[in-house]
C-alpha cells in the first residue's frame, strides 16, 4: 500500500467517459455530453492536484523524491524477461505532468462548452477530448517504455481524430493525415530505438533503465554499428520519436497544418500537452541519455536550438494568428529540448533539466492561454487572419487583458512566469555552449517581436469591416482565460528547483543578473520594434518585407518544407515506388503466372489435333513410329 492507489482513477475516468459518450452520446442532448466530460475531467483535475500536494509536500528522504508505483500489471509477456506492463509511476516529472495535463484539459473542457456550442459533432468532440486526455495521462504515468509507446500511439490517433474533427473540410482531412503519417514515421524510429534498447538491457522498465547505478547496460559498450555505439543509435532513434511528436525540425511540418482542428484542441493538444510528449520522453530517459549516450544528448541540444530559431523566424512572417502561435510553440519546444540537451545530471549540474521542466510547465499555461484567447478572437470575428482584425481591445476587454498578460509572459518580462523559466534555460545554455546561448538570446528577442506584432495587429490599429460588432465571449470561455492568466502570472514563483530535478534531490538556484538583465532588455527591444512597426497601421512592414524579397518569400512559405513533404509523398512514394510496384505485380509477376496458364492452354491446342479420333491417323502414326524406331536402332547399332 502506497496510499496513492487512487491515482489510477485519474486516467480511467476519462476513459470511462470516452466509452460512455462514444457509445451513447448521439442519443443524448449535446449539453449532457459536455457537462459529463467536464465533470469527469474536473474530478481528474482535483485528484491530480491532491496527488501533487501529497507527493511534493508529503516530505521526502535523503535521496530526494522517490518514485512510487501504486499499480503495475503484466499486460503481455514477450520473452522470458521482456514483459510489457501497464501501471502507474509517480515521480516528480510525472506528477508535474499530471497537473499540467488535467489543468489545461479541464480548462479546455469548460471553454469548449461555449466555443463548440451548436456544433454538429458536440458529443463526438467531447468523446475525443476524453480519449485524448486518457491517452496522454497514460503516457506520462507509464512505468515502462513500451507502455509509453502504446499510449504514444493512442495520443497520435486522438490527435488525428481531433485535427480532422471538421471531417467534411478537405483541408482538415489532409492536415490530420499529414500529422498522423509524419508522426508515424518518427514513431518507427522510436520503435526501432526501443527494440535496440530492450535487446541490450533486457528490460522495458523505467526503474531499471533510468537508475543511474543501472547494471542493465553491462554489455552495451562493446556493441556498435557503423562506428557509432549501439546506445547512441538507440537513443538517437528514440529521440526521433520524440522529435516527431514535439515537431522538431525537420519533422515540424505537421504542426502548423494541425491548426485546422478546432481551436480548443490546438490549445490542449498542439500547444500544452501532446507536443511536449517528446520533451517528456527525453526527460524520462534523461539518465540513459546522460550516462550511456552523451552524443545523442548533443544532438538533442542542437536540434532544439535550431528549431527554436528556425520557427521564430517563420513566425514573424505569418498572418494566420493560429499559425503564428503554432510556430511560436515550435520555437518554445526547441527551448525545452535545448535545455535538456545542455543539462548535466545531479544538483546544479542538472539546471537545464529543471529549467526545461519548469518551462514546460509555464509554457503550458501561457500558450494554452494564448490559444484560447485566439479562439475567443476567432469566435468574435470569424477569421483566422490578422488583416481581418484590428482595434479589438475596445470590444473584448477580458480577452485583451489576458492575451496581453500571455504575450508579456512569453516575452519574458519579469516577474511573470516565462521570465523565470526562460532565464534558467539561458543560464544552463550559457554554462554549456556559448553558440547555443547566443541563438537563444536572439530567439528571445524574436519571440517578443512576433508576439507583439500579433498583439498590436489584433488589438490596436483600425477597426475592420466585421460581420457584426465583435463581442466579448461568454463566461464559459472567459473564466478559463482568467484562470490561465492567473496561472501564467504566478507559476514562476513555484520552487521548481526543490521539486523537479534531474536526480529528484532539491538544490538552490539564484538569479544570474548578468544573464537575466540583458535577456529582459532584448525582450523589451523586441516589443519596442513591434510597437514601432505595428502600433499604427503603416506601410513600413510591407516595405521591409519587399526589401528582403526572396528571403521574405522563402520565410513566408516556411522554407518550402511542405513542398518537400508533398514531393516525397505524392511523387516519390506514390508515383515512383508504388505505381511501378503495382505495375510490376500486375504485368510481370501475374503476367508470368497467366503466361504459364496460356502456354499450357496453347500447347494443348497444338497437340490436340493428334487425338483426331480417325483410325487411319492412328495407324499411320503407329506405322511411322515403328519404322522410325527400327531405323534408328539399325543406325545406332
Amino acid at each position, binding site marked *: 500500500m502506497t496510499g496513492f492507489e487512487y491515482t489510477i482513477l485519474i486516467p480511467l475516468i476519462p476513459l470511462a467517459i470516452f466509452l460512455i459518450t462514444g457509445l451513447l452520446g448521439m442519443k443524448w442532448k449535446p449539453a449532457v455530453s459536455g457537462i459529463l466530460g467536464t465533470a469527469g475531467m474536473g474530478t481528474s483535475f482535483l485528484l491530480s492536484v491532491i496527488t501533487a500536494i501529497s507527493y511534493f509536500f508529503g516530505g521526502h528522504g535523503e535521496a530526494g523524491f522517490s518514485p512510487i508505483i501504486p499499480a503495475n500489471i503484466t499486460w*503481455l*509477456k514477450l520473452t522470458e524477461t521482456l514483459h510489457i506492463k501497464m501501471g502507474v509511476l509517480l515521480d516528480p516529472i510525472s506528477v508535474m505532468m499530471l497537473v499540467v495535463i488535467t489543468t489545461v484539459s479541464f480548462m479546455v473542457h469548460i471553454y469548449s462548452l461555449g466555443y463548440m456550442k451548436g456544433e454538429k459533432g458536440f458529443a463526438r468532440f467531447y468523446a475525443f477530448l476524453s480519449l485524448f486526455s486518457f491517452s496522454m495521462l497514460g503516457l506520462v504515468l507509464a512505468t515502462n517504455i513500451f507502455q509509453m509507446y502504446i499510449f504514444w500511439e493512442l495520443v497520435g490517433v486522438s490527435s488525428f481524430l481531433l485535427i480532422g474533427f471538421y471531417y*467534411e473540410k478537405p483541408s482538415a482531412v489532409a492536415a490530420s493525415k499529414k500529422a498522423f503519417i509524419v508522426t*508515424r514515421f518518427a514513431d*518507427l524510429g522510436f520503435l526501432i530505438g526501443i527494440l535496440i534498447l530492450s535487446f541490450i538491457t533486457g528490460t522495458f522498465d523505467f526503474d531499471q533503465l533510468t537508475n543511474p547505478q543501472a547494471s542493465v547496460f553491462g554489455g552495451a559498450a562493446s556493441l556498435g554499428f557503423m562506428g557509432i555505439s549501439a546506445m547512441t543509435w538507440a537513443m538517437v532513434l528514440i529521440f526521433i520519436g520524440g522529435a516527431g511528436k514535439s515537431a522538431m525540425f525537420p519533422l515540424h511540418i505537421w504542426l502548423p497544418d494541425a491548426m485546422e482542428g478546432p481551436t480548443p484542441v490546438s490549445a490542449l493538444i498542439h500547444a500544452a500537452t501532446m507536443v511536449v510528449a517528446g520533451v517528456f520522453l527525453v526527460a524520462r530517459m534523461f539518465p540513459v541519455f546522460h550516462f550511456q549516450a552523451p552524443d545523442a544528448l548533443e544532438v538533442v541540444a542542437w536540434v532544439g536550438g535550431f528549431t527554436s530559431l528556425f520557427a521564430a523566424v517563420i513566425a514573424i512572417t505569418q498572418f494566420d494568428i493560429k499559425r503564428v502561435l503554432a510556430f511560436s510553440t515550435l520555437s518554445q519546444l526547441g527551448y525545452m529540448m535545448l535545455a535538456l540537451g545542455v543539462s548535466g545530471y545531479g544538483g546544479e549540474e542538472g539546471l537545464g533539466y529543471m529549467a526545461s521542466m519548469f518551462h514546460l510547465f509555464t509554457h503550458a499555461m501561457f500558450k494554452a492561454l494564448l490559444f484560447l484567447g485566439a479562439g475567443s478572437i476567432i469566435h468574435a470575428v470569424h477569421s483566422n487572419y490578422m488583416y481581418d482584425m484590428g482595434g479589438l481591445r475596445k470590444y473584448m476587454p477580458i480577452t485583451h487583458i489576458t492575451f496581453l498578460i500571455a504575450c508579456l509572459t512569453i516575452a519574458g518580462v519579469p516577474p511573470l512566469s516565462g521570465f523565470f523559466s526562460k532565464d534558467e534555460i539561458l543560464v544552463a545554455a550559457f554554462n554549456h555552449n556559448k553558440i547555443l546561448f547566443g541563438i537563444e538570446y536572439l530567439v528571445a528577442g524574436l519571440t517578443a517581436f512576433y508576439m507583439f506584432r500579433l498583439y498590436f495587429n489584433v488589438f490596436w490599429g483600425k477597426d475592420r469591416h466585421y460581420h457584426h460588432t465583435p463581442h466579448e465571449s461568454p463566461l464559459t470561455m472567459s473564466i478559463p482565460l482568467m484562470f490561465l492568466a492567473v496561472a501564467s502570472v504566478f507559476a514562476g514563483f513555484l520552487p521548481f528547483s526543490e521539486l523537479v530535478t534531474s536526480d529528484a534531490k532539491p538544490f538552490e538556484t539564484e538569479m544570474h543578473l548578468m544573464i537575466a538583465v540583458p535577456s529582459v532588455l532584448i525582450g523589451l527591444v523586441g516589443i519596442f520594434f513591434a510597437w514601432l512597426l505595428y502600433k499604427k497601421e503603416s506601410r513600413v512592414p510591407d516595405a521591409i518585407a519587399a526589401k528582403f524579397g526572396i528571403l521574405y518569400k522563402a520565410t513566408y512559405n516556411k522554407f518550402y518544407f511542405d513542398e518537400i513533404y508533398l514531393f516525397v509523398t505524392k511523387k516519390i512514394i506514390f508515383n515512383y515506388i508504388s505505381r511501378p510496384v*503495382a505495375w510490376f505485380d500486375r504485368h510481370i509477376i501475374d503476367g508470368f503466372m497467366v503466361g504459364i496458364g496460356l502456354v499450357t492452354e496453347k500447347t494443348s491446342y497444338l497437340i490436340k489435333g493428334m487425338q483426331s479420333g480417325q483410325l487411319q491417323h492412328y495407324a499411320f502414326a503407329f506405322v511411322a513410329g515403328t519404322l522410325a524406331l527400327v531405323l534408328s536402332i539399325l543406325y545406332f547399332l
Partner: protein
Amino acid sequence: MNILSLFVVVPVLTIVGILFTKDFKGARVVSAIGMSIQLVLAAALILMYLGARKAGVTDEMLWTADYTWFKSLNIHYAIGVDGIAVAMIGLTAIVVFAGIFASWEVEYLSREFFISLILLATGVFGFFISLDLFTMFLFYELAVIPMYLLIGVWGSGPKEASAMKLTLMLMGGSALLMVGLFGLYYNSAPDGGSLTWNILEIAKIKIPVEAQRFFFPFTFIGFGILGALFPFHTWSPDGHASAPTAVSMLHAGVLMKLGGYGCFRVAMFLMPEAANEMAWIFIILTTISVVYGAFGAIWQKDLKFINAYSSVSHCGLVIFALLMMNQTAMDGAILQMISHGLMTALFFALIGMIYGRTHTRNITEMGGLMKVIPFLAVVYMIAGFASLGLPGLSGFVAEMTVFVGSFQHQDTFHRVVTIIAASSIVITAVYILRVVGMILLGPVKDPHHLELTDAKWFERLSTITLVLSVAAIGIAPLWLSDMIQASLEPIVAKLTVFNPF
C-alpha cells in the same frame, strides 16, 4: 463423441438441414443456427482448454482420438488440438458466424450458396483438428474446392476467370504439397518399421537430412501459396475482387491461415534441419512481400484490391515471423494470423456492405460516407486502425510481438530484415489513411449517396462480433499469448536444437 469431432459433425448436419429448407429464408436461418452452435462450441473449447491447462494437463495435444481409416496405407482419422489449433478454431468460428450474417441477403441459389460456404468451413475445421497428414490434406482440399464454385457462380466482375486463376494456382500449390507429404510419409520410418502419416509420430523421429532438403521446399511453398507467399500471391487480388462478401471474408480471414499454419505445423516442425538451412531464402521473400504488398496497396483504386495487397503484406509478416524460429516471433506470427483473420474479415464484410449500397468499389467515386452511413464508416475506421497497428486493437499486439521476437537474433541479417519489415507500419498508415480520407471523410462526392441507409441489424451483428473480437485481443492479449507460447514450446525446441543462433 469427442468434442473435436463435433466441429466437423455440426457443419455437416447444418448442410443436411439446409437441404430440407424451402427458400432462402429457411436456408439462412438454418445456417445461422448451425454456425451459432459452432461459435458456442468454439468458446466452450477455448474455456475447456484453458481449464485443462490450468489443472496441470501437460499433454502436447488434448482430446486426441485415433481411428484407422484406410489400413493398407496406414491412414487414420487422428485428431487432437493444442493451444494454437484451439485459437485457430476460435478464429474460424467467429469468421464463419460473421460471414453468414454478412450474406444474409443472398437470394440467388441461396441454399447452394450456404451449403458451399459451410462445406468450406467444414474443411477448415477439419484441417485444424487433424493430426494425420493425409486427413489434413483431404480437409485442405475440401476447403479449397468449394471456393471455385463460390466465386464462379456468386462472384462479380470477371468471376469465371478469377475463379479459374485462383483455383489453378491453389491446385498448383496442392500438387507441390502432395509431393511433400508423400515425401514425409515414405521417409517416416528411416530405420524400418511401418510408415505413418501421424504428425506426432513423425516428429519423434528424424527424417534424413537429404530427404528434408528435397521435400521441404515442396511442402513449404505448397502451403506458402495459400498463405500468399511472394511471388505466388497474385491469385489473391483477382480472387478477392471477384468473390462474394462472405467468401472473401472466409478466404482471407481463415483459408489463408491454413497456409501459415501448415508452414510451421508440417513443414518446419517435421523438417527442422532443412527449415533452418533454407530459412534465409524465405525470409528474404517474405520481407519483400511485407513491404511490396504495402506499396502495392497504395496505388490501388478498388477497395478489394487494396485489401488484397494489404493481406499480402500482413500474411507475409506471418511467414516472416515463423521463420525467425523463436518462441516470441512465432507467437507473434500466430497472433498475426488471428488478428489479420479477424480484421480482414471485417474489412471484406464492410466492403461488401458499402458496395451493396454505392454499387462501386472504386475509391475515387466515393467520398464523405461518414456523413451518410456513420455506423459502417466508424466500423471501417476501426478496422483501418486495427490494420495500421493501433494499440488497443489486435494488430498492434501481433506486430509488436513479431518485431520484438525477430529482433532477438544477434546477427545483422535478421536485424536488417526486421527493420525493413517494421517500416511497413508507416506504409500501412499511408494507404489506410488514404482510403479513409477519400471514401469516408471530406464532402459527399456523389449526390446519389445522400440517400443511402445505414447498416441493418444483421450487418451490425456481423461487424460488431468482429470488432469486439479485435478489441478483446487488443486490450487483453495475455491469456491468448500465453496459451500460444506454451503450445509452441515443443515446436521451438525441435527447431532450435539445430539452430546456430
